[in-house]
């Protein structure tokens, strides 16, 4: 028996919007600690890892660990039927092949039940090693989203370089090049507007902008975003989900063209 009641239903709606572009089908895993998802995009280039801790739910009952395969497009269709102020409850019986989403209006005068079929998904649950990152950048999520959008109108690859000077996002395309540099700035009115750059070692990596742009779909979830970089390692783009968890995107870097021509 599974019953998860989330007062802030809009969070779940936003989470789904942040994931569904990257992944079509995924397994949601429920355990006593929380509600989580881990999935790769079909090209195995990006990985999304979501966690909503049990404490964040008003009511959290999960008798035994359960893995539910869902089509995220369909799930999103259903969640779109919930009002932004609605309380969402996720329910499933053990061994059932369906999951129920219940939407309650704040005034309790409307209750909607949506039942969705589950699917069998071959999931590859992949351990992601914790890493020591050379550089960590925290910045307003809106700013990051804007940068990715702007750069993708020029090129398809972004080079993110962190140096003493700050963090530089650059791209090149047929029509020209673009460079955007952000410097550390902690003297702001609101803490979420700060740009904090923690650099142990300078680092410079290339990534496909297409993926970055789908990560920024998580912008509504959090005012800030944290970007952690290390040479030759996937970048981690993390958005906190209220006080209850996070959504982390991992993206494998592109390697330089020269290596391309090397014999394998």
């Amino acid at each position, binding site marked *: 028996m599974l019953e998860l009641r989330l007062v802030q239903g809009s969070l779940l709606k936003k989470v789904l919007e942040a994931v569904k572009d990257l992944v079509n089908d995924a397994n949601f*895993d*429920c*355990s006593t*600690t*929380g509600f*989580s998802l*881990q999935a*790769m995009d*079909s*090209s*195995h*280039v*990006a*990985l999304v*890892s979501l*966690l909503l*801790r049990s404490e964040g739910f008003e009511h959290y009952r999960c008798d*035994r*660990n*359960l*893995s539910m395969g869902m089509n995220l497009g369909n799930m999103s269709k259903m969640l779109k039927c919930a009002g932004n102020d609605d309380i969402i409850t996720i329910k499933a019986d053990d061994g059932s092949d369906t999951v129920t989403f219940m939407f309650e209006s704040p005034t309790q005068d409307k209750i909607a039940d949506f039942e969705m079929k589950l699917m069998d998904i*071959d*999931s*590859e*649950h*992949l*351990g*992601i*090693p*914790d*890493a*020591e*990152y050379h550089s*960590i950048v925290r910045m307003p999520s809106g700013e990051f989203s804007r940068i990715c959008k702007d750069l993708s109108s020029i090129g*398809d690859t972004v080079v993110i370089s962190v140096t003493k000077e700050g963090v530089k996002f650059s791209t090149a395309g047929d029509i020209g090049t673009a460079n955007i540099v952000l410097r550390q700035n902690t003297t702001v009115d609101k803490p979420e507007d700060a740009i904090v750059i*923690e650099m142990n070692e300078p680092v410079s990596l290339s990534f*496909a902008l297409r993926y970055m742009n789908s990560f920024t779909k998580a912008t509504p979830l959090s005012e800030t975003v*944290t970007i*952690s970089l*290390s040479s*030759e*390692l*996937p970048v*981690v783009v993390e958005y906190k989900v209220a006080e209850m*968890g996070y959504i982390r995107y*991992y*993206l*494998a*870097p*592109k*390697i*330089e*063209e020269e*290596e*391309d021509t090397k014999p*394998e």
Partner: protein
Amino acid sequence: AAAKKKTPQTTNLSRSPNKRKIGETQDANLGKTIVSEGTLPKTEDLLEPVSDSANPRSDTSSIAEDSKTGAKKAKTLSKTDEMKSKIGLLKKKPNDFDPEKMSCWEKGERVPFLFVALAFDLISNESGRIVITDILCNMLRTVIATTPEDLVATVYLSANEIAPAHEGVELGIGESTIIKAISEAFGRTEDHVKKQNTELGDLGLVAKGSRSTQTMMFKPEPLTVVKVFDTFRQIAKESGKDSNEKKKNRMKALLVATTDCEPLYLTRLLQAKLRLGFSGQTVLAALGQAAVYNEEHSKPPPNTKSPLEEAAKIVKQVFTVLPVYDIIVPALLSGGVWNLPKTCNFTLGVPIGPMLAKPTKGVAEILNKFQDIVFTCEYKYDGERAQIHFMEDGTFEIYSRNAERNTGKYPDVALALSRLKKPSVKSFILDCEVVAFDREKKKILPFQILSTRARKNVNVNDIKVGVCIFAFDMLYLNGQQLIQENLKIRREKLYESFEEDPGYFQFATAVTSNDIDEIQKFLDASVDVGCEGLIIKTLDSDATYEPAKRSNNWLKLKKDYMDSIGDSVDLVPIAAFHGRGKRTGVYGAFLLACYDVDKEEFQSICKIGTGFSDAMLDERSSSLRSQVIATPKQYYRVGDSLNPDVWFEPTEVWEVKAADLTISPVHRAATGIVDPDKGISLRFPRLLRVREDKKPEEATSSEQIADLYQAQKHNHPSNEVKGDDD
């Protein structure tokens, strides 16, 4: 922020060979190892025990760096490398080859796709038929020795087929969909892939080169032969809304998992353009030979001189009557090759390869060939060959000469037959020609009219072009197989089984005579009523039905054979020269090629610039203009001195007539068959029509060209000397 904990795995996250196995173990006991404690699992703890039991993927690009897992990686690395280093063993003579030494996987384990891809790669460097057959044979033997249940899939992939031809199952993927899949799987833009495709002319090479700048989070499972083949069948099954999208995603999932030379061959397989210089016939031969080495079930019959050749022949022969690997392969494994003709018999509903006739040049030649033998002459109707199966349950299937299902094209044929078969007839296979017919004027109409009929899902009420069935052979009747019977008996059964109804169903007009004048008159009469000429068949000795064979017991004689090389030939335009003067703006001449079935290549045979009306030239030029490619295909064989202005995809088939054939230093047709270095070319070629019913691969074969040349030499020895290329 990220944890400051240095783990040894961090340096090769993108292409880690062993990490992915964590996932698998978790799958096995789902629920136990779900993310806990609000952070991702500490891999160090997870990884170590897991990778022990794991059978990690080898990937050449993973860097064995750290000491801790170094040893294991060395082991994992060696998997691909081991296979790569051993693959050359396949080139050994089958007698010296030991499948045990070749296999790099456990018995019963799914055969890795890489193994087949590497074998293909080995073949791509060979041109000798015997070596290629040996490699294929040894490859199949390795599969039989380890995982025989994967043999069907391996054979299908080698033959580059998805399902028996008559099932009409095709991958149905356009080049643009493959381009999309490649660009998405490898993180390239579509434009880039397209551009490279124009440059390289082979999407397979593009795919191979695209595996590149984008690294991956985790490497997917290595592909297996069965996985690839099953996915192909799933792709073929996708239909309806979003089917292209679904096909693309399935291809993408395969492409993402490819390594080494796999993308090259996977892409070519998807395009159904393997082009490694061997054909389905070679695969059958290799299969037969592999079965001999695997023989536990039966011994070759005593006095078998060369069991290998004999076995190859048996498998090929059985395939002509039952072209279904899914039945033949298991029968080979369980019953052995010597029992195959007994265990695999032809089956109602499965098309048999139609028997074909050899061209001849005149009545005299026929009398010469059929001395002292009783033979019969039949009209050769100009329509579409059809093999009609009538099942016990009352349903019909109609197959074309290529075993394609034409049932939906000819509902009227089925209707006529069910009306005109006699009540005693419960099941049959009929060999016949379906011909367009004007029932008012009681006249046979030319093939061109027939080709205007719709091809699929024809509704009886919408039919504008009526057809008449001209039946000439009966292969099966009421549960009884007839192909081993003489034509005389088969024909009697045929005549007994149907009522004629002129304009709907008729028996092919026939005469039995050995009088030269009478035959000549019969030939003239056949041409008068709109036939192409005659087919001459042995009647009561050496007169069995020989499936899929161009037999000496059936000869064809066309009216216009006499003044030229005999039969017209069907050739593929592969290049063209810009027109000048009056022909500015269109192509002035085209380069034609025949098709070498064994080597799977198009060989140039002549330039053609005559026989075109202006309208036809316009039409052909504009139709081919959309097929222009930047560089010739790798499987084009063209003399160096020709230098055409543009090259084409092989798409059209043209029926061409020529004065005669001659040895040519320029053209490459049938090189190696008649002359070791020189090819054959056509003199004074003239375009008759476009063969819409033929695919480029069904063009006249190099072997047929060589036969025509030999026949001509035989009949007119003087021609050879004056031969001179135009």
